[in-house]
């Protein structure tokens, strides 16, 4: 895209990162969605924190956040889930892809406060309890669908959603519906093959 914002990468959470680290996330009490859905999550005053409840990879989390924090920074810096990557921070690369209530989204352009009451799934949450890999993870290995691996968690989260959405009818459809995930290493051929392979296994399993 020719609208790349000349290298600027303001990190909203970094402003109060220390504070955030302190104010955050020791609690993991179960909070039902109903209990928080109606919350008008505001605190007046510019330094206000906002209480946010998320279910992350099946675990309930309660956080006190600067409203500026993205879901991506929250996952990475508050919850130490560093699988989702920051490539661009502007919705342009797909490295930060996670599932929000089952749908793939760009976590860099999602305010964490907006995800209040929602279920988040990250790459850390896709493999079964028994320690084996998700069929999509295995397929990425089998088809050599990565080089540096930076885009891979986002690719896999997008690919799992792509299969579930039913957008894997043919190679062109997969390319179209995976176009939101850029791979600087150009592993696209392997990624396509991995998705085709995993799609049949996901349907079978």
């Amino acid at each position, binding site marked *: 895209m020719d609208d790349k914002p000349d290298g600027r990468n303001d990190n909203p959470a970094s402003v109060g990162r220390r504070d955030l680290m302190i104010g955050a996330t020791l609690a993991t009490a179960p909070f039902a969605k109903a209990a928080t859905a109606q919350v008008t999550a505001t605190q007046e005053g510019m330094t206000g924190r*906002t209480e946010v409840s998320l279910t992350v990879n099946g675990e309930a989390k309660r956080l006190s956040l*600067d409203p500026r924090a993205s879901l991506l920074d929250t996952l990475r810096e508050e919850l130490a889930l560093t699988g989702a990557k920051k490539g661009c921070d502007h*919705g342009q690369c797909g490295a930060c892809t996670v599932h929000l209530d089952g749908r793939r989204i760009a976590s860099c352009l999602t305010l964490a406060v*907006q995800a209040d009451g929602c279920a988040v799934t990250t790459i850390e949450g896709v493999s079964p309890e028994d320690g084996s890999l998700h069929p999509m993870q295995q397929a990425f290995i089998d088809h050599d669908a990565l080089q540096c691996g930076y885009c891979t968690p986002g690719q896999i989260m997008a690919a799992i959603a792509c299969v579930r959405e039913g957008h894997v009818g043919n190679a062109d459809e997969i390319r179209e519906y995976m*176009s939101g995930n850029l791979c600087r290493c150009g592993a696209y051929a392997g990624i396509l093959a991995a998705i085709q392979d995993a799609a049949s296994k996901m349907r079978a399993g």
Partner: protein
Amino acid sequence: MRPFTYARAGDEAAAIRAVSSGGRGTRFLAGGTTLYDLMKLGAEAPERLVDISALPGLASFDTAGPRELVFGAGARMSDVAADSRLVAEYPALSESLWKAASQQLRNMASLGGNLLQRTRCAYFRGGEPFACNKRTPGSGCAAREGIDRGHAVLGGSEACIATYPGDWAVALVAFDAVVDVAGPNGARTIPLQALHREPGTTPEVETSLARDEMILRIRVPATPLGRASTYHKIRDRESYAFALASAAVALWMEGDVVREARIALGGLATRPWRAQEAEAGLVGRPLTLEAARAAGEAALRNARPGHHNAFRIELGTRTVAEALLIAQRRA
């Protein structure tokens, strides 16, 4: 990023009240894919955000009505793009959505927010040290003497030549859509054609909406022209890019002869651009390759090139011609 407070609205009326009473720095927040993005760049700096993304009533849409299609402003692009009736009966509307952004973004982005997305002009997004009248009124326009490859060839002014980047509004304008909006003083209906402004001397004023007016829904009159329609989008790469040129076209054919034609241009103008002269020139004649080309030329007749974007006049001409032939095959 400037600090802000965040509140989730309970319903539409409460959202309007909150934005209205909150004052100048208070804004609606839907998917955030435009607003939050621009906040990170300092091009937007709201003090208060009123989140309307979880309002259940706002997200519904109905494409089955006999008289009109109704789209709640909160409906997500991905859900609407996949609507089977839209795909079959109004392919241009569906295509304008699925050919935009990525599936991740379409899952987040709302139809109302989409209409109000802001330009991708790199000087506007980048800010300092570049002058930008849209970002800082009166500061000048860096694009005029800078890289204007993606800038508008239609509807620009001395003050600003920023392209309106959206696709959905272009398809809607071809179908004579209207938007229902509500503010503290009541509701009104605006033709989509009258929603976006040309920059003139005030490029920072982009629409005819007041700050505290909320888009509730978009309505499209039902029409048999929907079937023979397309949204043809030409980009630097095949997918996940803004239009270098695009055309929304819809036809009503009687045999070989055009009874009615709709043409709107995207990616080329400062606002969604209806090309009525080009439409009129097609009516009553067979739609030949030459006629399609002539319509493309008519649509771009008033285009004015800058330094690096002249190629998009010919590209736009051909995009219109090709779109007409695609739509004709669907008739």
